[in-house]
């Protein structure tokens, strides 16, 4: 009877995981989805404790409770206190914990199943994968953290890694084959797996870390699933497989979004591509943003100001920008255009352009009228403008544009700049704005990128 209810609860938990994950893939339902999965998780944990049959010493219960309590407090506080920007590394850290947990289960359970080749395979697979996930995640965490700065690459590291991987596999297979119960072999395998995890992630550049974390995430899922198989526990099995498959797909999707095949991510040529664009410029690093992230940011803003410049005209993106305006206004976002007196290449260039796509005259704001408004603006979207938003005009007396009034886009809560490259504009000078903390660059031809943005916005609904 007990057991039966247990199964029902496990089943329900699995369903919450599926539903939760599904809801997480839509902006509107994501938060609830997360909570739903959390509820399922709590239920599964309680079920595992409460419905256990057979005598258990109070000591064990005590240990479990203490471990859970401490884990909860530590986990909660860490997660609550972390800064927004540090979240990805935290995800990596937590992922490592899960991997370690799976590895430990394997270590402990191993001797119970010596000789049973099926169970041994399952245990060793779970342990190896968990260990790789653990050590790999730790390296990823250290990299994102800045504790490890550069991609460390041994000569021929690819071949080395592949050999280790094969070695791991052969060694584990041999253990199962011989049915050895030797703890020594177990720990050697464990250590080798940890080592492989480290070597696997070390050569990979920082820019590719999110992909790696996603991959390690699906590894941990797999490790959990092996645990489920071992215990014949459905919720572990389904939860693990779910994460394993969803995580793998997610990894592929992320690779696609970054335009790098997964193969490159795993076998070198890592993070070499993107750094060039994003780390050029003498004044430091620029932050890039993609159309999809920007779409969310815009969708959930109250007030957006668009700053058009010559690049909008070059791209002939006037119709798309109007579409963007329309869709944002439909979502309840207040949109206006800040027209700088010398934006473009002729007086009134922006007016001519925007009139063509029927932007209302009333939405076009003069510089003096709109400058005070930036402070109340959530997002400024600078499209193909450069000199007219260059703070050097105010701060650098040696600049050729010194003294020219500019649009104070820096006062807004966030500033997105769309242009094709880091090349300067008409005046031929660097623009410090691009390197500011609040600024994110949206690289690409205005027409193309804005079309993508519009598509993402439509998908968000």
């Amino acid at each position: 009877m007990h057991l039966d209810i247990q199964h029902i609860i496990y089943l329900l938990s699995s369903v919450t995981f599926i539903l939760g994950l599904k809801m997480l893939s839509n902006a509107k339902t994501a938060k609830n989805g997360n909570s739903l999965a959390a509820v399922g998780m709590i239920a599964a944990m309680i079920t595992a404790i409460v419905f256990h049959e057979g005598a258990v010493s109070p000591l064990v219960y005590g240990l479990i409770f203490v471990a859970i309590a401490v884990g909860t407090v530590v986990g909660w506080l860490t997660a609550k206190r972390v800064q927004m920007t540090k979240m990805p590394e935290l995800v990596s850290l937590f992922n490592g914990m899960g991997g370690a947990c799976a590895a430990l289960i394997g270590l402990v359970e191993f001797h119970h199943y010596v000789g049973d080749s099926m169970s041994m395979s399952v245990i060793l697979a779970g342990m190896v994968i968990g260990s790789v996930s653990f050590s790999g995640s730790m390296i990823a965490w250290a990299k994102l953290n800045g504790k490890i700065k550069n991609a460390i690459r041994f000569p021929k590291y690819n071949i080395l890694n592949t050999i280790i991987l094969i070695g791991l596999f052969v060694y584990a297979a041999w253990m199962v084959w011989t049915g050895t119960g030797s703890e020594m072999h177990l720990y050697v395998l464990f250590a080798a797996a940890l080592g492989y995890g480290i070597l696997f992630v070390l050569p990979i550049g920082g820019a590719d870390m999110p992909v790696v974390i996603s991959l390690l995430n699906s590894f941990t899922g797999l490790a959990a699933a092996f645990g489920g198989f071992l215990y014949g526990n459905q919720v572990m099995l389904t939860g693990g497989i779910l994460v394993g498959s969803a995580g793998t797909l997610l990894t592929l999707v992320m690779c696609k979004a970054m335009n790098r095949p997964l193969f490159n991510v795993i076998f070198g040529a890592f993070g070499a591509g993107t750094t060039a664009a994003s780390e050029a410029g003498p004044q430091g690093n620029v932050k890039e943003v993609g159309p999809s992230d920007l779409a969310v940011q815009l969708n959930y803003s109250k007030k957006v100001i668009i700053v058009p410049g010559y690049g909008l005209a070059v791209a002939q993106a006037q119709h798309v920008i109007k579409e963007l305006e329309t869709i944002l206004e439909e979502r309840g976002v207040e949109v206006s255009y800040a027209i700088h007196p010398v934006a473009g290449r002729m007086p009134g260039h922006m007016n001519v352009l925007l009139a063509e796509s029927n932007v209302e005259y009333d939405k076009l704001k003069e510089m003096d009228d709109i400058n005070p408004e930036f402070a109340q603006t959530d997002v400024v979207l600078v499209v193909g403008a450069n000199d007219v938003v260059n703070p050097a005009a105010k701060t650098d007396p040696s600049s050729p544009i010194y003294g020219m009034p500019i649009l104070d886009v820096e006062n807004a809560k966030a500033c997105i700049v769309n242009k094709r490259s880091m090349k300067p504009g008409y005046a031929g000078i660097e623009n410090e704005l691009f390197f500011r903390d609040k600024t994110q660059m949206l690289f690409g031809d205005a027409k193309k990128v804005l079309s993508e943005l519009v598509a993402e916005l439509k998908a968000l609904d």
Partner: protein
Amino acid sequence: MKLSVLKETDAGETRVAIVPKSIAKLTALGFDVTVETNAGASAAFTDADYTNAGASIAHTSKEAIEKSEVIVKINPPSKEDITSLKAGQIWISQLFHRLNEPLIKELEAKGIKGLSLDAMPRISRAQSMDILSSQSNLSGYKAVICGADNLGKIFPMLTTAAGTITPAKVLIFGVGVAGLQAIATAKRLGARVEATDVRPECKEQTESLGAKFITVEGEGVKVEGGYAKEVSAEYLEKQKEAVNKSLAQADLVITTALVQGAKSPILISEEQIGLMKNGAVIVDMAVAKGGNTALSKADETVIHNGVKIVGVSNFPAQIPTNASELLSRNIDTFLSHLVSEGSFKWDMEDEITTETLVTAKV
């Protein structure tokens, strides 16, 4: 059949009734075309263009008239034309027969068949022969260009280093063929455009061009077959109220309101002109029929209280090339409708023939 095209003699007229492109079509219909020398010169068609197209040249209008059975012109015949005409000839031009009874009588007396282009019935199949439509359309465009040329301001909004120029406000009275083209042209140039008309369907039409319509809530308008036939004084009063605010802000006003078979209504009184801005411009397109403002004078520019009132009675003559092309196409289509196998059909069942044949059957 021989057909002659006369050179226009009216002051300020620059168009020509038939352009070289139509000669081939007329020849195919069985006409032998003669063109008075220099007939197309002011519309950028040389005598050489005509001869190349297959026409011959007559050196005087007399010669041209005497040579042919059919004579084509845009404007009514001049005194000399009438003297040269002989019984049995067919005269095609605008004749304004309702306002020009003596002329019609004279033609009838001489035994001349007069076909009046302005009497074309406004039915669907006659659209391609309707010179009023084709010329009004060009006039609507040209009135805006003329307004833009006379205005001390530019149309579009421009934000420049030396400040922002606000868009010009254009107000259009009468949303007929000319009014619609005027709306479209002013919109294109970047003005803020408003329009008003007595016919309620004009609201949708105005909005279909992206402009704003000022609706006048009032009665006393008689619309017949798409034309305003009569507008009561009471309605005109209501209209004044409704438009005065726009009028006071307008930079350019274009009036196109006509009432068929009557003097054009006065839509802007002297007092209302007083409300307008210094430097504003009114282009009165109805000036040939009396004008839509109290002060308009045909082919003169009146300045009252800083407001320029430009009255142009013949806008198409300012774009003679295009205007002549369309006219010529209207006329050649008309002729191909009238003629069959080398001779006139005189089909008296046909509305187009009966309405345009304004002289009594002779």
